[in-house]
C-alpha cells in the first residue's frame, strides 16, 4: 500500500496543471478503490490471485509436484504465460493459459525444480515468478 501511494505521488508530480484538475476530479473513485484494496478474500497457499493488474503473490515458492492455481479477479481478461515458452524445448514444462475472464482459473503442475518466470501476454507489465524446490 505504501509503495502504491508513493507511486501515485510520483505520478501526480509529473502531471501538468490541466491533468491535475482531472486527477482531483478522480480522487473520489481512487479513495473507493483504496478501501476495496483492504478487503481481499482469503487466499489458498498454492494460489496466485490476479487483482488490479497484479499477480499476487508476485513470487511463490512451492515443492516439486505442486499444482498452482491462478485465478483472475479483475473485470478484464488476463493470461498466464511462461516467459520462456518459445525457448523451452520440453513443451511439457512450458505453460500458457487461455484468456481468463473474471473468476476463471488456470492450474499447472510444476513437475520439476527451477524458477519459472511468467507474464500476462495481454498486459506484459504484469509479471510473476514461481520458484519450485
Amino acid at each position, binding site marked *: 500500500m505504501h509503495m502504491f501511494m508513493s507511486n*501515485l505521488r510520483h505520478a501526480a508530480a509529473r*502531471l501538468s*496543471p*490541466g491533468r491535475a484538475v482531472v486527477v482531483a476530479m*478522480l480522487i473520489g473513485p481512487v479513495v473507493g478503490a483504496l478501501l476495496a484494496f483492504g478487503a481481499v478474500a482469503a487466499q489458498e497457499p498454492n494460489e496466485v490471485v490476479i487483482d488490479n493488474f497484479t499477480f499476487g503473490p508476485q513470487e511463490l515458492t512451492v515443492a516439486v509436484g505442486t499444482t498452482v492455481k491462478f485465478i483472475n479477479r479483475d*473485470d478484464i481478461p488476463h493470461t498466464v504465460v511462461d*516467459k520462456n515458452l518459445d525457448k523451452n524445448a520440453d513443451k511439457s514444462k512450458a505453460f500458457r493459459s487461455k*484468456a481468463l475472464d473474471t473468476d476463471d482459473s488456470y492450474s499447472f503442475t510444476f513437475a520439476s525444480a527451477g524458477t519459472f518466470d511468467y507474464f500476462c501476454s495481454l498486459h506484459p*507489465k504484469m*509479471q510473476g515468478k514461481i520458484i519450485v524446490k
Partner: protein
Amino acid sequence: MAKKGPDDQEKGLGRREVLECMVWAGTGVLWTISGGVPHSVGLIGEAAAAEPATGFTFLQMSDSHIGFDKKANPDALGTLREAVAKVKAMPMKLSFIIHTGDITHLSKPEEFDNADKVYGETGVKIHYVPGEHDMIDEGQGKAYLERYGNGSKGAGWYSFDDHGVHFIGLVNVVDLKAGGLGNLGAEQLAWLEADLKGKSASTPIVVFAHIPLQILYKEWGWGTEDGTQALTLLKRFGSVTILNGHIHQLAQKVEGNMTFHTALSTAFPQPAPGSAPSPGPMVVPADQLRSMLGLSSVTVLQGNKPLAIVDKTLAG
C-alpha cells in the same frame, strides 16, 4: 498534453486551446488542424455549421468491448447501439469508419456477430485494426483475421488511399514481450517503410492502431515499444494524424507536424494515468457514464486546408 515549444508559438498554438480540450472532453470539441497544429474553434453545433461542402468526413470508433457486462457498464452492446444511432443521425455524409480495436471483449464468435450486426446498421464501410481483446480466441487471432483480415498482411496491417489521404492501419497488440509495451515488430516496420517509400511528403497521412504509438504512461503499458521507429519513418510528411484507442479516454498531443489523438470507448471509461491502482474499467455513477463514452469524427478539407477532429459523447 502538448508541450508548448517555440514552433507551436509561431503557428499560433496557445496553451489555452490545449487546456480547453481537456475541459471540454465531456461535451465535444471541434479541432481544426492547420499545418499540423490544432486549434480549438468551437463546440459541436458551430462545427456542423462550419463544415464545407468540399471536404470529406470519416469517423473513429473504438473499444466497443462487445461481451463486457461488468459493473462499469452491464450493457456494452446497448451503448454501442446508442453510438450507432448518433452516427446515423449525423448531418454530414460519412466516407467510412475507422475502428481502432477491441471490437469484442473476449474474441467470442457471438461477440463478433453482435458487433458486426450493430456496426452494419451504419451502412458505411468499416476499416478495423485489432485490439488485444480481439486476438484471444483459441487460434490467437485467427477468428479476427478470418473476419476482417482480407487483404491485410501479417497480423492484420494494411494501407489504403481515399481522397488523396494515405491511411495506414497498424497492429501493435500481438507478440507482446514480458515487461514491455505494445509491439509492432520488425516485419511490420519493414512493411511500413516500403509502404511509405515514394510517397510525396505533401501526402496527408492518417495512421491508426489500437495502443497509442507514443508512450503515454509506461507503468500501465500505454504506449508502443517500437513506436518511435514508426514515427521516425513518418517524420518527413507534412501532415500526420495518429488515431489510437485502448485507453478509453481522450488525449491529444501535437509534436511538430504530428497530431496524436485517442478516442473514447463506447463501452466503459478507464482512469486517468496514475489516478487509480490499475487501468481497469472505471465505475462511475450511471448518470455520468454516457458523458465518458463516445466517438470522434474527422473532417479532411480539400487542399492544404485544416483537418478537424470532433469528439462526441453519448450524452449530448
